């Protein structure tokens, strides 16, 4: 009896968290699963009719936005990886006593709301602004061209907003990399580039994995960047869901799209982790 009670203690510790998950995650989730198979219209209200065709209809109707979301999120993640790896490498290996300061610089944008930060980019890239006129001057942008309302502006905005999510996990895995392993590689006849390829990169894989997921997942569902830096031609699935929930009030379509997105991302992660070999990852981490 006494022993059983002792076994319960860890569950007591977990209780607040479990309750939180139940109330704010599981219940809304189940509720929205229900909503996603309802039918009706905004005036008359919606009834649970198990109309699974909501899913196929929504996917058919909004396939361009779904595709665009994946492409934009993928492009932004690749750009972030390209920027964040050298940056994290520099902070972890070369920054010395500036480490703390530079890490603060990386997370500093978080001190401001994402919407405000994106609005600032809107101002920077505005059609009559300095940046655009300079770009026109050197011929990158045509005379009638603009930067806003292009895929580049939206992808750039997403890449900018999620960069810290890539830098921090990469930094964490590079920072704890034992420098003697790189020395050992060069001792065993590896040139610096080979040592980087054969030792540094594989050991940074947990960081690459975590960073890519932290960028890609929220980027896929992002709607702020497309709304502020793009036009309806750049709308992503997040914009569609938002409009259907808040403007059109077509709750079933919005919910169905949300769950489709969740499913898509879960499948994507499984493939990704299979490719990178998460078993190896956890072994390296441990």
């Amino acid at each position: 009896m006494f022993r059983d009670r002792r076994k319960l203690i860890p569950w007591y510790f977990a209780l607040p968290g479990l309750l939180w998950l139940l109330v704010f995650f599981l219940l809304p989730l189940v509720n929205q699963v229900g909503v996603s198979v309802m039918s009706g219209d905004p005036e008359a209200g919606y009834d649970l009719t198990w109309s699974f065709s909501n899913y196929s209809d929504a996917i058919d109707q909004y396939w361009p936005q779904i595709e665009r979301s994946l492409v934009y999120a993928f492009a932004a993640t690749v750009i972030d990886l390209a920027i964040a790896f050298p940056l994290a490498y520099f902070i972890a290996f070369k920054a010395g006593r500036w480490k703390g300061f530079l890490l603060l610089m990386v997370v500093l944008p978080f001190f401001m709301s994402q919407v405000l930060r994106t609005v600032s980019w809107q101002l920077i890239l505005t059609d009559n602004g300095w940046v655009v006129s300079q770009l026109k001057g050197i011929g990158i942008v045509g005379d009638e061209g603009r930067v806003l309302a292009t895929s580049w502006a939206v992808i750039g905005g997403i890449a900018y907003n999620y960069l810290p999510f890539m830098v921090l996990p990469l930094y964490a895995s590079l920072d704890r990399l034992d420098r003697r392993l790189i020395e050992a590689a060069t001792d065993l006849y590896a040139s610096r580039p080979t040592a980087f390829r054969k030792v540094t990169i594989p050991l940074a894989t947990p960081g690459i994995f975590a960073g890519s997921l932290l960028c890609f997942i929220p980027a896929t569902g992002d709607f702020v960047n497309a709304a502020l830096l793009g036009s309806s031609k750049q709308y992503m699935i997040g914009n569609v869901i938002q409009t259907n929930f808040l403007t059109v009030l077509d709750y079933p379509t919005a919910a169905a799209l949300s769950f489709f997105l969740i499913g898509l991302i879960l499948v994507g992660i499984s493939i990704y982790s299979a490719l990178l070999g998460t078993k190896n990852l956890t072994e390296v981490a441990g």
Partner: protein
Amino acid sequence: MSSAAVTTPGIASATGEIRFDAVTKRYGEVTVIDDLSLTIEPGTFYALLGPSGCGKTTTLRMVGGFELPTEGNIYLDGADVSHLPPNKRDVNTVFQSYALFPHLTVLKNVMFGLERRGVGKAEVQRRATEALDAVELGHLAERKPTALSGGQQQRVALARALVNRPHALLLDEPLGALDLRLRRQLQVEIKRVHAEVGITFVHVTHDQEEAMTMADVIAVMNRGRIEQAGSARDLYDTPQTAFVANFLGQSNLIDATVTGTDGEWTVVQTHDGVKLKAPTDRVAATTGKLAVGVRPEKVWIWDRIEEADAGERENKLTARVTSSAFLGVSMEYRVETAAGDELIVTVQNNRRNASPPYANGTEVELSWAPEHTFVVAVGADV
């Protein structure tokens, strides 16, 4: 370990002559290695021994190419390697705590060096497997290093380095992380591997016993310089400096001056005027700050009452016992001489009817054979 796999049929004679020519290493204003010149003969098991911060690891890392000398040159088998990167040097290192690649299997770790040198795939596989078998770890080839015990990891590190058939093997405190029992076992094993492969081993350690067990030549380092290099027996019997006398075993040192010499024997006078004799060939210096010394186990300790029949003994001092400790094989007495010097005397517990130990406060006479006396230079730090 069987010799077949680790030894190289191609290498008949010993290789791995390492020469430092006036090497200095500075980090900013701090001089870590100060005008170091040394030659390590091919095939030697050479230990760099010293306290932390003495420059022994930096010396080793300059051979490996992980640090470059600020001044001077380093030669490996006659070729100037001073500024070559590590991957261009025919030496391999067993790192402190091994530095095995955690993302690769044990076998892949051992294959790493051979793969980089463009050895054929089948050949790489065969030699790596042989090397693992040689350290009796063939059955663990597909494990990750983290799944191995410390001693096993040490053996993998050894196989990973030796499989490349380097001209010299560098060992950076390779046994530091292991417990005493395993350390003793691996000391013997590494020594045996050295005899089998016949290349130069350079071994960095702060453990004097380890250095004495394994090395042919021990270089005692202090403050970026080699104080003295020689066999364990040389260093123990005829230390040149007070630092060596104290770092390798225990020594009783008394400040003294040389007062005269008659060929074979040199007479020294301690700071309070006692005259002692030392063999002239064991007098490392005759000028500057000197100390006369004797090892604790060479000193006889006598009860003052027995003094009557001790007329012939030379090199006598009077003292008083301040403390004693029973160490099993021996008794260790700490005594204070009339002049206030603290000395140590160890007495083997091998007498048939061992007399009861001397109590604290007992007035005793110390004496030792003059041939066991040595004179050393006293440096800035003892």
